[in-house]
């Protein structure tokens, strides 16, 4: 038994008492506890998994604001975890209890991994904040992994790694959808003015009413207002000359004009929007009606296959990459192959940093349905047409027309 094995339950108690901040320390200590005894591949795999599942979620959460959910659970919760640990120790750790079990005969031992898992379970059950529950589940992953590595159970370690992946990914998706991004530096100039758009973009309007009391007294209008302002900014920036004149010269002129009109009137109905695009596309390529139909269908299909998180990422991408639109359209050509597989960008979208995510998600949402053709069309999963979708279509349209102009 090493010091790390003893420290791990204490750090798990800290996670129960104080929150997700102690999770990286718990992960590192758990990894050390695994690696101290032996350096077999099983131990190394377990240690790497534990460190990843403990550090990455905390780093991810640090990019979001504290949701400030008021915990109604009292200060007794850590003591509940401690009591359960003591009961578990009494039931399994004593020589009398373990006398008949092979491998532990006659020696008292601390079921450290299971103590960590118990503490995590208490955090999941008793805490109400989503991030705290996430931390509790990840502590469970650490504890079960440690116990599996100590007991040399390969199957348990593998299944725990899978469960850890599931918990980390789905928890990250949930965090991305229900929490606000961290405010970065205040806007100072034209380049900095686009930063707040990225912060508000991670928020979903549908969740404002669903998630109960809004933290920090932030009402829905406080979220809506910067978004509208951002759209106005984006529209204003569209009127500026594009940074690279050689690309801008190749670009089809009507596409830019129509796109501006779309951005200027975001609340327009979807049908009107599509009609406008149809006429727009005909001005550019009036000889290809099938392409126009496909073009109208594509955004619908892309949003059906895309997750809402991706929708938000699209919004982020639009707002952040509007001024440097040419870079986006260049990226599209590179990402077109990656966009053929709808599942791969989905999986990546929740993992990557927002800048990269937005580019990948935007280009994949724009490009992926093309190989599937018009039969991919489905009705919208979300009945109410929303502004991010319109902006995403707008970006797609611009990229599409740029591509066509380049081909011509």
């Amino acid at each position: 038994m090493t010091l790390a094995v003893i420290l791990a339950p204490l750090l798990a108690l800290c996670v129960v008492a104080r929150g997700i901040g102690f999770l990286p320390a718990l992960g590192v200590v758990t990894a050390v506890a695994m690696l101290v005894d032996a350096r077999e591949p099983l131990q190394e795999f377990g240690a790497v998994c534990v460190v990843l599942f403990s550090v990455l979620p905390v780093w991810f959460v640090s990019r979001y604001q504290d949701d400030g959910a008021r915990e109604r659970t009292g200060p007794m919760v850590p003591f509940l975890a401690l009591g359960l640990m003591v009961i578990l120790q009494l039931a399994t750790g004593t020589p009398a209890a373990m006398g008949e079990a092979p491998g532990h005969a006659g020696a008292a031992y601390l079921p450290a991994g299971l103590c960590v898992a118990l503490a995590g379970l208490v955090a999941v059950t008793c805490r109400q904040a989503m991030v705290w529950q996430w931390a509790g589940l990840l502590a469970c992953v650490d504890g079960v992994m440690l116990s599996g590595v100590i007991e040399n159970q390969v199957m348990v370690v593998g299944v725990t790694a899978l469960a850890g992946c599931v918990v980390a990914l789905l928890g990250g998706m949930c965090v991305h959808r229900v929490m606000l991004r961290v405010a970065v530096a205040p806007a100072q100039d034209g380049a900095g003015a686009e930063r707040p758009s990225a912060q508000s973009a991670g928020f979903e309007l549908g969740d404002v009413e669903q998630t109960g009391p809004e933290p920090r007294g932030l009402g829905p209008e406080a979220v809506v207002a910067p978004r509208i302002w951002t759209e106005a900014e984006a529209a204003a920036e569209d009127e500026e000359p594009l940074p690279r004149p050689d690309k801008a010269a190749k670009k089809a002129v009507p596409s830019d004009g129509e796109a501006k009109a779309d951005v200027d009137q975001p609340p327009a109905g979807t049908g009107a929007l599509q009609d406008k695009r149809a006429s727009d596309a005909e001005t550019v390529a009036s000889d290809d009606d099938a392409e126009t139909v496909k073009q109208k269908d594509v955004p619908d299909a892309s949003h059906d296959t895309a997750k809402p998180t991706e929708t938000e990422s699209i919004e982020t991408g639009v707002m952040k990459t509007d001024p440097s639109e040419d870079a986006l359209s260049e990226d599209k050509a590179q990402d077109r192959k990656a966009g053929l597989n709808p599942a791969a960008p989905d999986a990546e979208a929740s993992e990557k940093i927002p800048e990269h995510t937005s580019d990948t998600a935007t280009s994949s949402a724009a490009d992926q349905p093309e190989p599937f053709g018009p039969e991919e069309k489905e009705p919208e999963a979300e009945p109410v047409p929303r502004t991010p979708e319109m902006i995403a279509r707008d970006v797609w349209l611009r990229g599409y027309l740029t591509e066509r102009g380049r081909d011509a």
Partner: protein
Amino acid sequence: MTVPVFLAALAFAWPLLGAAIVMAAPTPRSREIAIWMAGAGCALAVAVFLFPATSAAAEGWDDDPVQRAGRVMLAFGLLLTVMENGILQDRLLRGLPHISTALTGLACVAPDPIIGLGILEAALAYGVFVFSRPAGQARAGWALVRTGSVGIFLVLSGLLLPSGSAPAGLMMACGLVMLAGLTPFGQSWREENDTYLFLPFAGAALLLSMRLRVHGGEAFETALVAAGLASVWLTACAGRSDEGLRLFRTFPSALALMAVGAGADVAALLFLCGWCLAGGNRSGRSWAARALACFPPGAPFVGCLLLLSMLSDWSWSVTVLTVAGILCAVVRSVPVEGFTQDLWPEDAAGRVACSVLVLTGFLVPLAMMLGAF
């Protein structure tokens, strides 16, 4: 490769194939195709039950007849789910019942129950991903992930403890109760489409609990019986309120967990049949309510008789409490309106369900007498 092995492999791959075809099919024809694929899956499951692959047991894959019959019930549950649905527009949602049934069937047959737990977690993750895509569903999806993962971690912790010890049995029983969605301990599945994921998921948890009994020991069995009894009595006490109807949905799984704890695997199989064909959100229909309330004829009624006969060997006091609890639940919780009408349901799905329930109720005791179980 012999024919039975090929059949067994095909039976597991079939729902995945069905999911792929249903998702790729044009929307107006998808329901028809889904019914055909699910029906063929039922035929395959019955064929696997009748012609077991004898070499599979030697290689560690499970070959218990109760498990095979349980997979037949899961396949019929899929057929019924597909028949009840209209034409679904969302492709992922359309394929979800097929995929979850395939994954849970694979979880039941995996050589190690731990692998089965991993496959269950994967099924849960996919289902939650599909469910929580619409806006505003993020927290509901997180609640599902949280409860399911807690159950799986509890069972894994129990499996890491020494076999037969009391903490191991208690932890595994708690985890399985959560996985089986036993109200009020388990999931809060209240959505309309919960049957897509929840019916096969809870069924697989029931089938897995039979295999985990070896590791759990006496504490495991006692804890399962206690949890089932508590759920039965809570159903009886809740009455006909909304809460009571929600409890009444999981009435057969409570009895099935009691049967697993008492060692009556065939009774658990019959309750599982009731759960897959009449449980979940079908409990509002009159024929389903009659089946759930263990009215004759039907599989749950026969299962109830078998359970009581096994429980009387186990403990007299628990038997009396169970009988009283079931009677109270039937008197107080069964929906009254239309209970005696609609003896032969109007819709095709209801007719299939009633036929299968009655046939299972007759055939399973017959097979047990012939020594099949």
